[in-house]
């Protein structure tokens, strides 16, 4: 078992080293790239030996398997090997040399990972550049190495691998495609693998197109802009296409435009803007390195991309181009996940603040209010209780007791520590204000570093907490009063960055609340005159959907006349991400449960599985029961579309999304309020092209009080039941 998994890691690591050159971890993509490297056997062989050695050593000395398996420790060695094979013909010396270089490149790789890792920067192909220089300088002194002359006898080579037809094709290409621009592009692509010919370039281009539309588009953009820049600056065009320089522009464009940043109009523009810089750097470096007699290889790409990433980290606001935070390994995946995630969870990981009271209250003054919420104190709320006529008081409202909110409990809005308490300030008669102690009786609670909540104008003597007390959401801290600058009883609530009374406010959203009794709001700001209240989760829904790691779920599935069982298990990743895994197909659906919703965040695997259907059906499930509540959400396009549609869509996706998939679920209760038999969720998933409906899928989920689930795919007549 152990040796087996080691072999698998080795094979994975070697294969993905090839795709890793284009920042990819795709196996299919590796195949054409591997083949391309063998157009010149010596080159291909030396590359393979080198990556084999590097990966084996990495495994032998127990480096991180996940990283090895992704090819991240192999691709630099691969490039060095390819370079060696290009310069020297295959013989025993070259084999040994490739192996030694592979090992050495690994050492350089790990060292650079350590150095650059401190700055959270990738090592890119810098290890290749450094190793290659050393190895090249060294090999000039080796007498047992034969210089590889295959590239000189190109037609012989072609005949060897493709017979006469390939030679003819080459002849046709040479006579018909004479554009420097086009040939230079393919030459540049081929030269990434030290295959300095059109054939290699064409294969790589096709493979890149098949693998990623964004990557392919960027490769063309990077090359084209460089071409124009060379023309404008009057630089030597042949240097771009017919030397080992052009790919610097291609790789940089892919790195900045689509891999390290989310593909978008901004990232594409940056990729274009950076290109002339690379041209400058390249030309400068060629000048410098000429004196050493060394090729600059991919040094311009490495330098510019690293500097660019590092520089952008110092931005004060992250608008415009956004760095990829969770690398999924492919521009399209990053794009679709980001588009979906940014839309669904713009406040992921924020502290969950709730309203500091029970029941339904009205916002009497919101952010940037007309009375006192101005300037540095703009981001605060005043809450009162009103009757159906909008009145805050009974009788004449001449005494505080007439006000509905007066004396009502004020609670801690989230877990935290009480840091400041000010009590003992008299409550004002109606209409009068106290401007010397303008915040009145106040409690400040610390929830996180630089996040404090403050509740003010409390009733004198009502505060029930002391400085240093730990409180949880719901702990009573006092009662609404009329102290401080308060002309009538109301609750002032604000979030701030320091513990001091009088501190300026902090714009920070409330994690969840019910607006006007119908709408669940998450990470939003209550607006003026809205009725707001905290959301009470339903214990049946919560218990059903609060899946715990280790939990197994066995479904009895009926599909037409057939029945079978499907087993799921819940796991947790080292980064605390929960997911359900289908035991048979290994499909994974990542989910999260917060106080208000159960939602799926990600899916990977077979789309014919029950798990995928459930992912569609239970994409966002409310854990609170509000009669006839309807919840909407949007799926990532690539999780719900496939084939040619998605393929073509990829070209435009960075700029505009033509395809979209809407999720809607409606919850109804079965049984009466006191005798709830369960809840039924009816989900509709609709695929759109712009506004045109392309397809609709519908599902129903029934949650029973005895923790059993019934699930039905309405279109495919698939029914499933399970006990939780």
């Amino acid at each position: 078992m152990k040796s087996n998994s080691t072999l698998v890691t080795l094979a994975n690591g070697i294969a993905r080293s090839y795709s890793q050159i284009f920042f990819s971890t795709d196996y299919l993509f590796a195949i054409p790239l591997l083949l391309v490297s063998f157009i010149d056997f010596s080159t291909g062989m030396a590359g393979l030996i080198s990556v084999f050695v590097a990966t084996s050593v990495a495994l032998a000395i127990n480096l991180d398997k996940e990283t090895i398996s992704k090819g991240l420790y192999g691709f630099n060695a691969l490039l060095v090997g390819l370079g060696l094979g290009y310069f020297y013909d295959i013989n025993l010396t070259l084999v040994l040399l490739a192996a030694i270089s592979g090992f050495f490149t690994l050492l350089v790789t790990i060292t650079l990972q350590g150095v650059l890792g401190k700055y959270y920067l990738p090592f890119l192909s810098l290890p290749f550049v450094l190793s290659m220089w050393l190895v090249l300088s060294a090999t000039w002194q080796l007498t047992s190495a034969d210089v590889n002359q295959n590239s000189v006898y190109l037609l012989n080579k072609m005949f060897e691998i493709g017979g006469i037809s390939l030679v003819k094709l080459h002849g046709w290409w040479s006579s018909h495609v004479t554009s420097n621009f086009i040939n230079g592009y393919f030459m540049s692509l081929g030269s990434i693998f030290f295959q300095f010919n059109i054939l290699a370039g064409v294969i790589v281009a096709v493979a890149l197109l098949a693998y990623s539309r964004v990557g392919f588009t960027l490769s063309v953009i990077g090359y084209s802009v460089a071409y124009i820049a060379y023309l404008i600056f009057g630089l030597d065009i042949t240097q771009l296409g017919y030397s080992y320089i052009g790919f610097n522009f291609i790789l940089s464009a892919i790195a900045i435009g689509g891999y390290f940043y989310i593909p978008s109009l901004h990232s594409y523009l940056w990729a274009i803007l950076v290109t002339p810089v690379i041209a400058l750097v390249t030309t400068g470096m060629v000048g410098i390195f000429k004196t050493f007699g060394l090729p600059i290889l991919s040094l311009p790409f490495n330098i510019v991309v690293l500097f660019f990433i590092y520089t952008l980290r110092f931005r004060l606001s992250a608008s415009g181009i956004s760095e990829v935070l969770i690398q999924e390994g492919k521009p399209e995946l990053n794009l679709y996940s980001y588009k979906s995630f940014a839309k669904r969870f713009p406040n992921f990981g924020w502290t969950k603040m709730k309203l500091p009271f029970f029941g339904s209250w009205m916002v009497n003054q919101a952010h940037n209010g007309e009375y006192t919420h101005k300037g540095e104190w703009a981001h605060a709320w005043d809450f009162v209780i009103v009757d159906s006529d909008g009145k805050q008081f009974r009788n004449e409202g001449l005494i505080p007791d007439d006000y509905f909110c007066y004396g009502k409990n004020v609670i801690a809005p989230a877990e935290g520590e009480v840091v400041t308490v000010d009590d003992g300030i008299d409550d004002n008669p109606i209409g009068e204000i106290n401007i010397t102690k303008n915040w009145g009786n106040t409690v400040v609670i610390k929830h996180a570093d630089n996040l404090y909540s403050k509740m003010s104008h409390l009733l004198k003597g009502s505060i029930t907490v002391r400085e240093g007390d730990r409180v949880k959401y719901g702990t009573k801290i006092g009662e609404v009063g009329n102290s401080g600058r308060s002309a009538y009883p109301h609750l002032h609530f604000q979030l701030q960055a320091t513990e001091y009374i009088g501190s300026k406010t902090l714009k920070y959203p409330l994690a969840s609340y019910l607006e006007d009794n119908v709408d669940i709001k998450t990470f939003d700001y209550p607006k003026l005159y809205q009725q707001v209240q905290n959301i009470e989760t339903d214990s049946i829904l919560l218990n059903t959907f609060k899946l715990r790691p280790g939990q197994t779920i066995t479904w009895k599935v009926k599909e037409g006349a057939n029945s079978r069982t499907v087993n799921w298990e819940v796991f947790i990743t080292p980064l605390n991400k929960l997911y359900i895994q289908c035991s048979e197909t290994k499909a994974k659906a990542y989910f999260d449960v917060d106080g208000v919703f159960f939602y799926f965040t990600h899916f990977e695997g077979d789309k014919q599985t029950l798990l995928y259907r459930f992912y569609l059906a239970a994409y966002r499930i409310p854990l609170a029961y509000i009669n006839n509540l309807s919840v909407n959400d949007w799926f990532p396009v690539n999780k719900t579309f496939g084939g040619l549609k998605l393929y073509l869509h990829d070209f435009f996706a960075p700029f505009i999304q033509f395809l979209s998939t809407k999720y809607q679920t409606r919850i109804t209760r079965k049984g009466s309020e006191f005798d709830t038999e369960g809840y039924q969720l009816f989900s509709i998933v609709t695929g759109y092209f712009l506004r045109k409906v392309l397809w609709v899928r519908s599902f129903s989920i029934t949650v029973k009080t005895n923790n059993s689930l019934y699930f039905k795919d309405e279109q495919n007549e698939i029914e499933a039941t399970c006990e939780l």
Partner: protein
Amino acid sequence: MEKRVFERPTITKLSPGLPSKHGVGTAIAPMPFVEGLKVDELIEKYGSPLFILSESVMRKNVEDVNRAFKVRYPKFQLAWSYKTNYLDAVCRVFHQEGSWAEVVSGFEYDKARRNGIPGEHIIFNGPGKKAKELAKAASEGAYIHIDHFDELYLLADVCQKQNLEARVAIRVNMDVGIYPKWDRFGFNYENGEAWDAINRIMANPKLKLMGLHTHIGTYIMTADAYKIAATKLSDLASNIAHKFNHNIAYIDMGGGFASRNTLRGAYLSGEDTTPSFDEYADAITSAIINSQIKPDKLPTIILETGRALIDDAGHIAGTVIANKRLSDGRRATIIDVGVNMLFTSFWYDHKINPTQNHSGLVEETIIYGPLCMNIDVIRPSLMFPPLKVGEHFIISRTGAYNNTQWMQFITTRPNIILIDKNRETHIVRKAETLDDIVANEEIPEHLK
């Protein structure tokens, strides 16, 4: 300048020195308007006497009680006590405001169903349920509150024979430190009878124990009594959860909240002594929240309070028939409102105001109704201005119990109007005629 009203002269004893315990004197303000409408004009239009109900006061009261509970406790439900006032229009106002129905007889049950309330929003109380009524309620999913063991046996029998499942609760009576102790309804808490009933219900697969109910009395002037009752029921609930692993869905605290009427014989006015909804709510919710019941299993609080929601929404306007002097020199005023339609005057000192201005001088007066019966006394003694024959007055806080307990005795009953939120008036019950009264009478052949 307005012409001054003539008022016949009154002789009032001059009492110099310090004021007595009654203070410096009584002033009775005129009350010419009800809900913004002129009372005299309403009488002119609808006749005298006239029952006047205010829709907005009812709605406001429901809102007040809902607010008092909902800012303190997550789950709260009102059930409209039909016996307090089951005029269809009244019930529908409460149902529109989200109240369920609380009924105490088959007749009331049918009335609630007729008002469009589904069985599962009906609470069926009372000691006198019949087998047929139980079967119907069980089949419609109503919550049957069992009052005594014989009813428990009867219901078990009905469910067994008709293969029905019933949602039940038991009514529990207990000592909450007040007098009188109500122990005639339900099962006693202290002597273990309640547990006896619970054990039997839990053992019967046909009966589903949904809740616990208590009703500690009527016109309870202290919120503390509710705190004790809620604590005892919560203990019962958590012990049931512990013993049977069964969580009850609700705790029904009954009703009995006082209105602001003054009880006959009370030293202080009800307006000053009646606890607010907030005080009742605070007592009940804090007792349940502080109990052993787990936070995620908190039961819904049901309240069936009737009087406190409707009493001040009702008024009776009427006319002075005559004035006379009694043998001891006291003045008596005879009005056209009798105890047959103002049943509550047996226990309340109802507030009566003239509808027109007067000089401010008051005199001790007995107010008699128009019936030819000695018991027809509306107020045995009050300081009242000398109204003339034909002048109008209005009696406040008559919304509770009068429209259900009144009777056709000696005279027929008058119109009842409802003033809606837009101050439009609607007759919700027409004045009775002779035909109405004799409609159900049958005359044997030999008497024809």
